[in-house]
């Protein structure tokens, strides 16, 4: 409401503007208004559209997806990188490694001549510090579960780190691939001005607007682009328009409807394997009545995974109730189709738990702004449950508020979420922030679960290992601490040049090969 003339009368120009498809709303949202002014110089800068902002630049503190495509993939490095073609660990900060015969000691030789972006040399002490920082409960890192089996870490000299394990962990390298090495000297400013060893150095972060990094010339694998700027463009249509008019080179993580529209517009699509991500509902299993597994099972029956995959994802998603994809050797056969969409079954289970039309289940589903598919998921579950007489509300939260409600407090009933399946290794899936016994988003850790996870992770006999993981899947499918909805590939949209992006299965990507 402009104050000049009062807002009673519109002049003709204002009125015409309003006619333009309620452009007032779009103008208020202003998703793309300033793209032109902040437009990076052509030739050197890769401009990438992302849907939401991040809450901290500390790579050890947020597992949220938007992170992997920004700071975690460019400014920082881990010891190893999981190669998407071989699914084996490639050297990154570690030059080579050796696993002892008993599987309990891993010795890393570090790359020499690596420097931090502030010029100081990178040494084994940094690795020790970083691993201890993630393990420290005071830090509260969501990656701590990846390191539960690590009982000791020490630097025997400047270039050598020895990791001691409490039990054998076949997937230890995959676990270490997500633990990024941070600089102790600059730790105080890591949340806002991070210093890493990666191929790009941090330049600035304008919350809600953009994040910018520049090529670090001294890096051993110097990037081909001069800088990367991630623009926060919450609106998917504006991101597509940005690709078409050249203000964006690439768009990270898009949904089915964007892929369909990009295909029609002749925009390139970069796609990973079909099970890199899964969408799910996280359930606060500590809070009544969600501590009753019948309620959780009922919710699983109340969601039409098939219909959702077909319509909201235009068939790009693969419905499943099991977070472990059939591609993994440990997959429990025929489990993906358990819990078919069945409202009678859902009603019956809820009735057993004491919830009927006369005593309806009241719950709030949280969902994150900027993720349209997740919102659709929330609305569909809300509608089916309300139709059988319950009282479900949906609340869309800004991502930083959402993180606070889900991870920091936690204070929620149910939330939509999406999650990296991780490396093709069941050990890291059951140690992920969604399922790790030590601490997980679902607040779920029944008696015996931690032992089973530890036993499975340390079992070196393949057949026994598979049996243990299948036992774990049977357990989570019965207990239903989270409702898995589908498996998905990651989609990026971009021009020819951006197809050189290497999307890593461990949640870290390689931007150095992209040339404009």
């Amino acid at each position, binding site marked *: 409401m402009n104050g000049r003339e009062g807002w009673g009368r*519109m002049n003709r120009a204002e009125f015409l503007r309003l006619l333009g*498809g309620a452009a007032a709303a779009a103008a208020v949202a202003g998703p793309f208004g300033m793209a032109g002014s902040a437009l990076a110089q052509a030739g050197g800068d890769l401009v990438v559209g992302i849907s939401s902002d991040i809450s901290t630049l500390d790579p050890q503190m947020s597992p949220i997806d938007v992170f992997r495509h920004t700071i975690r993939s460019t400014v920082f490095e881990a010891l190893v990188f999981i190669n998407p073609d071989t699914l084996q660990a490639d050297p990154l900060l570690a030059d080579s490694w050796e696993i002892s015969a008993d599987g309990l000691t891993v010795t890393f030789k570090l790359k020499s001549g690596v420097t931090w972006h502030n010029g100081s040399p990178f040494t084994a002490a940094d690795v020790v510090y970083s691993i201890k920082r993630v393990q420290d409960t005071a830090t509260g890192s969501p990656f701590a579960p990846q390191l539960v089996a690590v009982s000791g870490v020490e630097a025997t000299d400047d270039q050598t780190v020895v990791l001691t394990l409490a039990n054998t962990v076949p997937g230890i390298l995959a676990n270490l691939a997500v633990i990024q090495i941070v600089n102790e000297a600059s730790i105080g400013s890591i949340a806002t001005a991070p210093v890493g060893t990666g191929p790009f150095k941090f330049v600035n972060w304008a919350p809600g607007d953009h994040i910018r990094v520049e090529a670090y010339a001294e890096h051993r694998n110097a990037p081909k682009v001069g800088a990367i700027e991630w623009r926060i463009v919450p609106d998917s*249509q504006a991101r597509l328009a940005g690709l078409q008019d050249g203000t964006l080179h690439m768009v990270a993580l898009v949904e089915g409807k964007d892929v369909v529209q990009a295909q029609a517009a002749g925009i390139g699509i970069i796609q990973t394997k079909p099970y890199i991500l899964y969408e799910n509902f996280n359930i606060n299993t500590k809070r009544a009545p969600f501590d009753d597994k019948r309620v959780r099972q009922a919710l699983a029956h109340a969601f039409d995974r098939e219909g959702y995959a*077909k319509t909201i994802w235009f068939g790009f998603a693969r419905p499943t109730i099991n977070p472990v994809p059939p591609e993994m050797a440990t997959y429990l056969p025929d489990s993906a189709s358990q819990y078919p969409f069945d409202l009678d079954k859902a009603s019956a289970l809820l009735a057993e738990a004491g919830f009927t039309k006369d005593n309806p289940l009241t719950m709030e589903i949280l969902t994150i702004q900027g993720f349209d598919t997740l919102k659709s998921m929330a609305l569909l579950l*809300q509608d089916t449950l309300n139709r059988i007489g319950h009282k479900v*509300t949906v609340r869309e939260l800004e991502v930083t508020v959402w993180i606070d409600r889900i991870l920091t407090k936690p204070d929620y009933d149910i939330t939509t979420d999406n999650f990296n399946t991780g490396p093709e290794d069941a050990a890291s899936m059951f140690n992920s922030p969604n399922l790790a016994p030590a601490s997980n988003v679902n607040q779920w850790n029944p008696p015996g679960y931690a032992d089973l996870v530890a036993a499975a992770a340390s079992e070196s006999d393949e057949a026994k290992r598979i049996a243990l993981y299948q036992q774990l899947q049977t357990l989570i499918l019965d207990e239903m601490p989270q409702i898995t909805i589908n498996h998905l590939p990651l989609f990026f949209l971009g021009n020819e040049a951006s197809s050189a992006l290497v999307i890593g299965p461990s949640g870290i990507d390689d931007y150095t090969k992209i040339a404009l």
Partner: protein
Amino acid sequence: MTDLATTPRPRRSSGLLAFLIRRSPLAVLLVGVFLVAAIFGPWLAPHSMTDTNLTVALQPPSATYWLGTDPLGRDVLSRLLGSAQVAAQAFLIVVLIGGIFGTALGLVAGGLGGILDLVVSRLVEVLQGFPTILVAIVIVALFDPSLTNAMIAVGLAAIPDFARVSRSVAIQLRDREFIQAARGLGAGELRILWSEVLPNMVGPLIVIASFDGAQAVLWEASLSFLGMGVQSPAPSFGSMLREAQGYLAIQPSFAIIVGIAVSGVILGLNLLGDAISDYLDRGGK
């Protein structure tokens, strides 16, 4: 607008509707459709406004779904009818808040004058200085996002319009003969404001209400577009536009239909405001 106010008690001519139809048939048609949709929407809706049905998602207009379906398979026509009701509620809340508080402030300030006028006028100027969107964000952040909360913010922003108009009318009227006559008969100042001044500003207030109400509909759409208004699954013009926008290239009819509906309602209300203003300018002839 002020000159018409000096004409005491414009005749409540039964020719208003006839005048409006003659002056702006489009406005009458659009607002008529809007009112019918807002009042009788729930009975007219061919399908449920909230029931999802993924087997018929994103359908173009058809015999079963006259205006097609949205991405969750909900009937667009039924949801538009529901949106009209929400828009009408927005209109009413804003006009009531702006009208009651704004008119009361303006009446007292203009009618009594003096230090009171000074204080009220500055207060109104302060209110006018608040950007609506910011006030809405604050209110929604403090309380929950809902239609009422969003419209309270918009209603606050409408207060200055009503206050300024009613104040200027009151100032012009307060020394007129019929007021002095009332005063001579022993009527108190407040009574004079209520029974002599207020009835004479109904005309300009109706004009303000029609424009501010149209703006309220637009603000409701804008705030719901941003997720700060009506919450899902209740339909709203804004949230429907937001949903439709993501499917522009896949099912353009969805966005076009919702866009036409919103534009039609706003256009109709504004044209009607213009027509009523003309009618009053002509002294109701």
